[in-house]
């Protein structure tokens, strides 16, 4: 036996032969080759015999041996498609409920899929307009202070790195240095408008594809005090007048010459600006500023490199590493790491800090993909489940088809075509839902609004169709396999349905899966909602009620204050540098008075004497700032308890009053100690040591406490006053509470996303459950009638029919709830500060909601059957 096996010809060559050879020629040809093979084994050895066999197989590949039925089969399939469409149409119409469930379920899930596709297409079309997009790279940097490893990579790097790369590195073709912050008011003659822009080095237009309409692209950004405006900005400033060569004043300070007008920045550019100033300007204005070229000043400069088509990434990285090794000792306790990133991956890549503009970030894309996948899978399961459940009715049709001569391939084809028809009809509905969802999706997060257009393009439509066909194949594949295995003889001979129900376990698993997913999503949404509410009502340690924060945007505080004080609704006005508790952070170094080696980077805010009473900050000891004039020297500071603790100052705050602190090189006396409050956003812990400094001239916001029954009207009044004083800047005051709400827009967006997906998932799962219940009750109609005749009660019947489903839901809950709680308890919440504790309530609510829906689904159908007249049913037999 062993020997026989050993000398058999190579199986794959054999397969090749039977693949291409006409079936009628195959057998004797194979036999002939075998005979030769056996001879060759004896005369030439096994290996050569096998080789010869293989070549013989190849040699027999001739016109007369190649099978023709390929074409015939295709032709048959083609002819049969008409028949498939017809029978599929009939079956769709005959089972209106099942078809509706399938189409609605698929449409709902596909709309999420369509959304995902359009988001992906938008994301990947970013920056593709640059001719060199695939060879442009950016240098990212990573900042590490001592052992703190928590910070991500930053999209920015230092000007020092930029210079070093430009002057000493090799292996790149060109480099663009961008520096952010060329934002401000542009004045020409009498007219002033605010514009946002960047400083850019002269190779900007060589590396990036930003075409100049006027001006010389090689020299436009060469000379100091040159500025290039976009077409739109120029139009806004000069109307139809010629702008090139004119001189404009930036921030009422220096004059810049317009050396170029460029086309507007395309929507799909990750770098957005209205104007560019030559980077060489900074060499003039920042001369003598040692910070400009400090190694650790890596927060504002972007370096883009144009690389040759082929370059050694490892070598370049090694050069960057060497630069870091050389420069890192220049700053104490700090390690900076540099890394290249391809421009094509900026929009879809990992979320970095200090991005030049908003990015999608891989996390959001993955979450969206995951959710879309889960929902689509759920809908496909419905399809599979219901199709297989209906196999009882269809199996005879398949039996007859097979008897007439359909091959397995034909049956598979028929069911796949049917699924594709369903999914294409679902696509029409899904497209409608997509159009409805689109604005809601975009408005979920202000960034998304800016990032995505989600416009319908030909490419998108093609993708949609491809997607629908793919879904059809995916949904129809399993039923197709199932049906194609049906044994015609058995089906036609034996009309009992027992055999078909063997697949029940699989269907149960699918239902459990769908419900687990729904439960998880609902619970997650509820937990997020709880967290969101918790943060909205979080006790920040001070009062934010009815406070309107007005960004001054460069206006004089006094003037506005005077006008506002005349309004009766205004109860008090204070000034501050920044707004706390919304995620912004101002830092300042403080020397430890007890240890000159030690210093602390504390969070701070500059305030005036009205700030603390207006916001109800609680002073534990000491007093508020004394009112001083604008020009007075800063001498007082108010600290929180954490500062005392950090510097080992006396625990009793009263004893710390009068201590001197060296803050940013100034000696300030502690005049007050305030209770700790939440300086950062409530869900992060930065800024535990916090101080208030006194300064009137650094005020950037007015905090106006209002007491009014009609806040919108008061707001409008204040806006009128603003417009009178400032004709350039729009009024963008916000209520403090609204600002806090905005600071949690990420959380509220994910809550909305999870909520809507949970809604879709539960819809789909319910549809599937409804289908299954209808099916089960229908097939058991006779049994139920007999039971009724024998004296079963309606309640008993409902219990009998529904029991199985409730057990499944119970299992789903047992799987979903622990998983969700584990995920939040172990993975999500430990990363978030000040979170609300997890309660069982959310899970219980989710289960109850799902159960109620299920009870309605199951109850309505089983009641219908249980109430039916048994005589009617049994009479029909």
């Amino acid at each position, binding site marked *: 036996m062993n020997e026989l096996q050993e000398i058999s010809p190579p199986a794959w060559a054999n397969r090749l032969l039977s693949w291409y050879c006409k079936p009628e020629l195959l057998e004797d040809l194979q036999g002939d080759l075998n005979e030769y093979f056996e001879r060759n084994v004896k005369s030439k050895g096994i290996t050569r015999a096998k080789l010869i066999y293989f070549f013989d197989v190849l040699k027999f590949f*001739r016109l007369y041996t190649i099978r023709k039925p390929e074409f015939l089969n295709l032709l048959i399939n083609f002819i049969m498609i008409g028949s498939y469409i017809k029978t599929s149409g009939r079956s769709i119409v005959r089972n209106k409920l099942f078809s509706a469930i399938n189409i609605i379920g698929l449409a709902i899930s596909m709309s999420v899929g369509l959304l995902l596709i359009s988001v992906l297409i938008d994301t990947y079309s970013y920056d593709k307009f640059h001719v060199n997009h695939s060879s442009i790279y950016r240098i990212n940097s990573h900042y590490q202070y001592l052992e703190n490893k928590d910070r991500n990579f930053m999209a920015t790097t230092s000007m020092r790195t930029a210079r070093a790369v430009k002057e000493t590195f090799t292996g790149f073709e060109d480099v663009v240095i961008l520096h952010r912050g060329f934002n401000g008011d542009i004045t020409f003659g009498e007219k002033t408008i605010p514009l946002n822009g960047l400083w850019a080095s002269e190779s900007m237009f060589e590396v990036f594809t930003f075409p100049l309409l006027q001006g010389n692209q090689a020299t436009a950004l060469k000379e100091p005090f040159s500025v290039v405006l976009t077409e739109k900005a120029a139009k806004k400033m000069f109307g139809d007048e010629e702008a090139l060569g004119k001189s404009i004043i930036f921030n009422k300070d220096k004059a810049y010459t317009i050396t170029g007008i460029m086309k507007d920045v395309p929507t799909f550019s990750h770098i957005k600006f209205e104007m560019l100033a030559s980077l060489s300007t900074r060499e003039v204005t920042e001369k003598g500023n040692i910070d400009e070229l400090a190694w650790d000043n890596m927060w504002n400069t972007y370096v883009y490199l144009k690389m040759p088509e082929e370059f050694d990434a490892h070598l370049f990285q090694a050069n960057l590493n060497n630069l870091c090794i050389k420069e890192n000792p220049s700053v104490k306790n700090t390690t900076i790491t540099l890394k290249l990133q391809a421009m094509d991956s900026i929009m879809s890549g990992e979320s970095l800090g200090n991005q030049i503009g908003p990015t999608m970030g891989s996390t959001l894309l993955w979450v969206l993909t995951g959710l879309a996948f889960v929902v689509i899978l759920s809908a496909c399961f419905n399809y599979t489940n219901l199709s297989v459940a209906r196999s009882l009715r269809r199996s005879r049709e398949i039996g007859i088809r097979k008897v007439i001569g359909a091959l397995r391939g034909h049956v598979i084809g028929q069911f796949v075509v049917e699924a594709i028809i369903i999914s294409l009809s679902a696509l029409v509905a899904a497209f409608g839902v997509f159009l409805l969802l689109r604005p809601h999706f975009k408005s979920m997060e202000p960034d998304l609004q800016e990032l995505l257009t989600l416009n319908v393009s030909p490419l998108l439509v093609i993708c949609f169709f491809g997607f629908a066909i793919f879904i059809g194949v995916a949904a129809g594949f399993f039923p197709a396999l199932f049906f194609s295995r049906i044994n015609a003889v058995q089906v036609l001979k034996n009309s009992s349905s027992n055999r078909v129900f063997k697949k029940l376990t699989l269907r149960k698993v699918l239902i459990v899966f769908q419900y687990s997913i729904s439960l998880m999503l609902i619970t997650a949404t509820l937990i997020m909602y709880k967290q969101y509410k918790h943060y909205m009502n979080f006790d920040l340690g001070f009062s934010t009620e009815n406070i309107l924060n007005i960004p001054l945007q460069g206006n004089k505080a006094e003037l506005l204050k005077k006008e506002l004080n005349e309004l009766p609704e205004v109860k008090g006005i204070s000034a501050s540098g920044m707004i706390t508790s919304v995620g912004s952070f101002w830092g300042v170094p403080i020397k430890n008075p007890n240890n000159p080696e030690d210093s602390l980077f504390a969070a701070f805010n500059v305030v005036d004497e009205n700030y603390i009473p207006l916001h109800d900050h609680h002073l534990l000891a000491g007093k508020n700032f004394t009112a001083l004039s604008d020009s007075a020297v800063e001498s007082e500071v108010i600290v929180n308890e954490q500062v005392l603790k950090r510097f080992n100052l006396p625990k009793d705050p009263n004893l710390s009053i009068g201590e001197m602190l060296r803050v940013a090189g100034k000696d300030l006396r502690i005049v007050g100690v305030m209770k700790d409050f939440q300086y950062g956003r409530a869900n992060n812990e930065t800024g535990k040591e916090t101080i208030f400094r006194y300064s009137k001239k650094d005020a950037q916001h007015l905090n106006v406490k209002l007491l009014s029954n009609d806040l919108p009207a008061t707001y409008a009044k204040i806006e009128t006053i603003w417009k009178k004083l400032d004709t350039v800047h729009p009024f963008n005051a916000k209520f403090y509470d609204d600002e806090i709400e905005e600071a949690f827009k990420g959380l509220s967006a994910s809550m909305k996303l999870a909520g809507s997906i949970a809604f879709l998932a539960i819809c789909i799962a319910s549809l599937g459950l409804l289908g299954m219940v209808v099916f089960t009750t229908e097939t058991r109609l006779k049994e139920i009638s007999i039971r009724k005749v024998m004296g079963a009660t309606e309640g008993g019947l409902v219990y009998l029919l529904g029991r199985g489903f409730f057990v499944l839901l119970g299992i789903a809950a047992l799987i979903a709830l622990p998983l969700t709680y584990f995920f939040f308890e172990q993975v999500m919440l430990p990363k978030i500060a000040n979170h609300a504790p997890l309660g069982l309530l959310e899970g219980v609510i989710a289960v109850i909601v799902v159960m109620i829906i299920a009870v309605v689904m199951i109850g309505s159908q089983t009641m219908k059957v249980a109430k039916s007249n048994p005589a009617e049913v049994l009479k029909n037999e």
Partner: protein
Amino acid sequence: MKGTNLGEFEELVLLTVAAMVNEAYSVAICDDLEKKTKRAVKLGVVHSVLNRLEEKGLAKSRLGEATKARGGKRKRYYAVTNAGKSALLKSKELRDQYWSIIPELSLKRI
């Protein structure tokens, strides 16, 4: 039809099929031809000729019984059809005609 005439090799194969009576299948034909003609005969060539002969209606085939040899594959036995027989006879007659008119002397001198 282009191929009612027998080619030289086709004729040889057909003759072998006729000669082997009930044992004519591709490998045997191949071996026999090799033995008689003393030249290497490729299975592929024989196979395609047999196929062509059948297509022309000069030979017919049937599958034999499966045996343990040949990996359990059946042999395809060929037999000459009436059309094949007449084609063979026709070609033999043609040759005989020529033979009959060649003067004996002309060959002897060579």
